[in-house]
């Protein structure tokens, strides 16, 4: 499995990081959802540039080194954490737009050429880590199918969750038996999602009924509205700022669309591994459901701060993976980003009215996280097994546990891949000094 960056992928990566740093400099968009809430005070001048840099830096470094880098090295595919966490900081750091553009472009070049070189070297070594990483796709794709059942358990209870799990499992088995041309995970996933949507709608209707019953008995509604008005006027102001700058986001949408269409950039945590295997339809499915877990968070932080998300609602990537050419992908990205900034204020109003649905989104995000943690750990240990059988399992698993008990410097989801990379380096050194005989990786 060798991946090489095409000239288009190289150019578009550099343009995307340059432009992302530019948007961050203008305080129009940041990638780190945690940095975004602070942009409000930064824009107003209540938070100094130095302090803002410190905040952005401290919230981003852990995810850059402990997540973006290991995932990129392990998959050979770019991800938004490795590209856009640094551009957030570079943009905030830059006192003017030109410096932001230059620093952003430099960063893109460093990443794309660095990753290209790292992948080439890794592929030429006796213990081939990228090839071993091919083990990752199966656990991710199959386990992901159960995230709706996990989300249902979190929100609606154990009984409902177990029911959803059993039904999803049946859907999987039936697909394996009678529909061999369909991917079994997809069928189970669709079944689970339908159940989750039904539970959510029923829950929403019930909670509305309860709220109406309560509203008739108590009457402190007037007090609430004054406080809420103050915040909603700030929200409208921020949303208007983003709408006014829509053309800026349309350009970002184009870049993200083209970038995702090169298949050298995975929008989600696990998609990089799936893209590296060339399974674009599956990557689309994963990133689409993932977006459902992020949209409310992106919308609320955007209208609360007046800064948008660099990758938008995260819907551009899943669509762009499947489009036939980069131009079309760019256009679709532009249109999506344009629509997204226009509808922000309506979505946030909807969210405050629909409590259950916004809870569902949180639970989707968390459930995806939990299933991917297990899948990626399993995939990593299998990759260890492929590299050095039992010894590999011990090394990867050992590094994972070591990370767990040391306060988790590496994010749990990336601890396995990090283990595989470190074990790979270790095994290659041992192979070089003839202490380890490399085995054939299937």
């Amino acid at each position, binding site marked *: 499995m060798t991946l090489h960056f095409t000239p288009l992928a190289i150019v578009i990566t550099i343009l995307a990081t340059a432009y992302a740093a530019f948007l961050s400099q203008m305080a129009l968009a940041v990638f780190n959802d945690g940095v975004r*809430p*602070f942009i409000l005070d930064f824009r107003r001048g209540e938070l100094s540039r130095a302090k803002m840099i410190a905040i952005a830096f401290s919230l981003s470094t852990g995810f850059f080194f402990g997540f973006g880098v290991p995932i990129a090295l392990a998959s050979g595919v770019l991800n938004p954490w490795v590209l856009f966490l640094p551009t957030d900081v570079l943009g905030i750091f830059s006192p003017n737009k030109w410096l932001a553009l230059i620093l952003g472009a430099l960063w893109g070049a460093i990443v794309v050429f660095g990753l290209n070189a790292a992948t080439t070297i890794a592929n030429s070594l006796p213990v081939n880590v990228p090839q071993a990483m091919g083990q990752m796709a199966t656990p991710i794709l199959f386990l992901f199918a159960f995230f709706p059942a996990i989300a249902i358990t979190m929100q609606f209870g154990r009984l409902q969750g177990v029911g959803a799990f059993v039904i999803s499992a049946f859907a999987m088995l039936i697909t394996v038996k009678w529909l061999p041309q369909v991917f079994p995970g997809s069928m189970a996933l669709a079944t689970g999602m339908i159940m989750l949507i039904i539970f959510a709608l029923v829950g929403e209707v019930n909670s509305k009924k309860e709220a109406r019953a309560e509203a008739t008995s108590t009457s402190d509604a007037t007090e609430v509205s004054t406080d809420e008005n103050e915040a909603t006027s700030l929200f409208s102001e921020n949303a208007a700022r983003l709408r006014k700058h829509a053309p800026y986001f349309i350009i970002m949408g184009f870049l993200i669309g083209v970038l995702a269409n090169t298949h050298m950039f995975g929008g989600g945590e696990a998609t990089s591994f799936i893209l590296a295997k060339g399974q674009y339809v599956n990557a689309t499915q994963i990133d689409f459901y993932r977006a459902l877990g992020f949209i409310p968070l992106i919308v609320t932080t955007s209208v609360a701060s007046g800064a948008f998300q660099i990758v938008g609602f995260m819907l551009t990537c899943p669509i762009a993976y499947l489009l036939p050419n980069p131009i079309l992908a760019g256009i679709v990205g532009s249109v999506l980003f344009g629509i997204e900034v226009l509808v922000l204020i309506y979505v946030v109003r909807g969210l405050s009215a629909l409590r259950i649905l916004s809870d569902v989104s949180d639970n989707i995000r968390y459930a995806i996280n939990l299933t991917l943690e297990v899948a990626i750990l399993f995939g990593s240990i299998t990759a260890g097994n492929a590299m050095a059988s039992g010894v590999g399992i011990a090394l990867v698993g050992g590094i994972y546990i070591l990370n767990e008990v040391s306060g988790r410097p590496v994010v749990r989801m990336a601890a396995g891949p990090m283990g595989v990379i470190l074990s790979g380096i270790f095994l290659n050194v041992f192979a070089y000094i003839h202490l380890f005989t490399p085995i054939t990786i299937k």
Partner: protein
Amino acid sequence: MATIYIGGLGKAEVKQLLEQRRDPELKIVVSNDLEAGPILKRTQNTYYLGTCHTGAGGSLGAMLAFLGRQKCHTFGRKAHVSVTDVHKLLDSGVRVFGLSVDQIDTVVPSLMDAIQAHLPEGRTP
């Protein structure tokens, strides 16, 4: 009696952890930023605990817009938080805390110890 509003990703986990304290002096409400923001603004001795991956995005959400930066704090992905640190934050008026979901079990206990030991302004022991 302190009221704790819980929001963000790890709602269920934080709720469970707080309920395990079995403290009748503690009121626990599962909520979210859009709902709890206005409530915290017009009440006293109420706190918000948010969790997400970064400890600041989904955790704090719109809280900074509702309450202002001075009342919000994020521990980020920090794994260990001392009770004294939290006391300092509480003394400076912080009532919204954001932390990373994978650090809930280490951060929440010391955070809660400090909140419960903290007496809101105007009250004497």
